[in-house]
């Protein structure tokens, strides 16, 4: 499956122009802060609307300005693992995991509840409240929740960045297992070259797209 996009995205006072075409199972998006990595994921998910361009996944068009196509997020069949997990605080771990299952129609039942729970070692956490999970546990639940919605494309936004180093190293093998065992293509945003080299098969480098004066004001980060 090919992800093919050419988008203009308004971000604050300026526009971001992004072009990308990838067929890799795991595509890493890297680049300094300000290069629009997270903004691009938001656009792929349909959370923000680009001001121009197109976005295609396989033979489906998710967005095309000139044809007035803009599929809402819930019709895009994506799984989104957010930086900060975004677990539902009013549901327990099991409630979070099962949240999206009812929206996945029968042909899309690649991932069974039991096998996802086993793969991510969530068995003992199922009845727990999400309030007292560690950072790594939270992200495992978030990954499981996304997989059980039977996505055609998995988006991961710096899944290790909100976790301390030791726990991040514990989570990494799960991500590698995800890559090797599953047939789901992934877009993986990261700023850590080490992490990227362990997980990704293709790397897309985004440049700093902020206007020069703003970079100069902020003292050229990264």
């Amino acid at each position, binding site marked *: 499956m090919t992800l093919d996009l050419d988008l203009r995205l308004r971000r604050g006072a300026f526009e971001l122009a992004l072009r990308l075409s990838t067929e890799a199972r795991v595509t890493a998006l890297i680049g300094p802060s300000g290069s629009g990595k997270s903004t691009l994921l938001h656009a792929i998910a349909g959370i923000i609307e680009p001001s121009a361009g197109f976005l295609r996944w396989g033979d489906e068009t998710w967005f095309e300005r000139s044809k007035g196509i803009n599929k809402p997020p819930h019709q895009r*069949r994506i799984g989104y693992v957010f930086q900060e997990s975004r677990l539902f605080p009013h549901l327990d771990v099991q409630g979070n995991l099962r949240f999206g299952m009812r929206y996945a129609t029968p042909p899309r039942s690649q991932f069974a509840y039991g096998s996802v729970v086993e793969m991510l070692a969530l068995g003992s956490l199922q009845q727990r409240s999400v309030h007292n999970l560690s950072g790594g546990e939270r992200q495992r639940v978030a990954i499981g929740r996304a997989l059980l919605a039977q996505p055609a494309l998995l988006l991961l936004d710096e899944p290790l960045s909100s976790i301390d180093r030791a726990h991040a190293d514990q989570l990494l093998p799960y991500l590698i297992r995800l890559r090797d065992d599953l047939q789901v293509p992934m877009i993986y945003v990261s700023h850590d070259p080490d992490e990227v080299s362990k997980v990704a098969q293709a790397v897309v480098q985004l440049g700093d797209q902020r206007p020069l004066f703003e970079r100069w004001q902020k003292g050229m980060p990264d």
Partner: protein
Amino acid sequence: MESHASLLGPAEWAALGLSLKVALVATLASLPFAIVVAYWLAADKLPGRSLLDALVHLPLVMPPVVTGYLLLVLLGRRGLVGEWLEQHLGIVFAFRWTGAALAAAVMAFPLMVRAIRLAYENTDAGLRQAAASLGAPPVAVFLRVSVPLAWPGIVAGAVLAFAKALGEFGATITFVSSIPGQTQTLALSIYNQMQVPGGEHRLWPMVLLATGLSFAALFLSEALVRRSRQRLE
């Protein structure tokens, strides 16, 4: 000397019971509408938002007597809507306790909507995005994420509206008059008692009761809001 038990006579007990019934029905009947309207107002994309906002808040700023009069014109027995309702559905509001409940609901609605709207606005938009990314259509996001997260605020809004409905006076007396046992709530009963020469000694127990009930409701509402903030952190 009057005994303790007769601080409230049968008429006062009836007024208190009627007030509680009117306020409870007003609150429960308007709650579903408030939950939807508040969500509409909290969402920034939906059309007609400013108009709805102004309409909802109108009873808060209009003289209650005007609200009551408009209710009478619309829903009285000869009213534009009232006549139709009586003929086709057999529903009568004028000079009935149901009319008192309707007047109380209209007057309390802005307060209820405000509290619920605040609760929605305090919930994390990121969680709604997460729900949508999991395939949930907008109505499901509303029912499975927005409402449960705002629930403590919804309860707080309902309690606040209950307190307001309990004390409603102006619109009620204009719309359904002050008929003992039928539409004479606690507030109307106090007003009525004030008109009786030398009736002050019978007034005070009701005044204290009304004050106590209002205070308890406000206290409960505030406590619920505080608890909801803690829960979401």
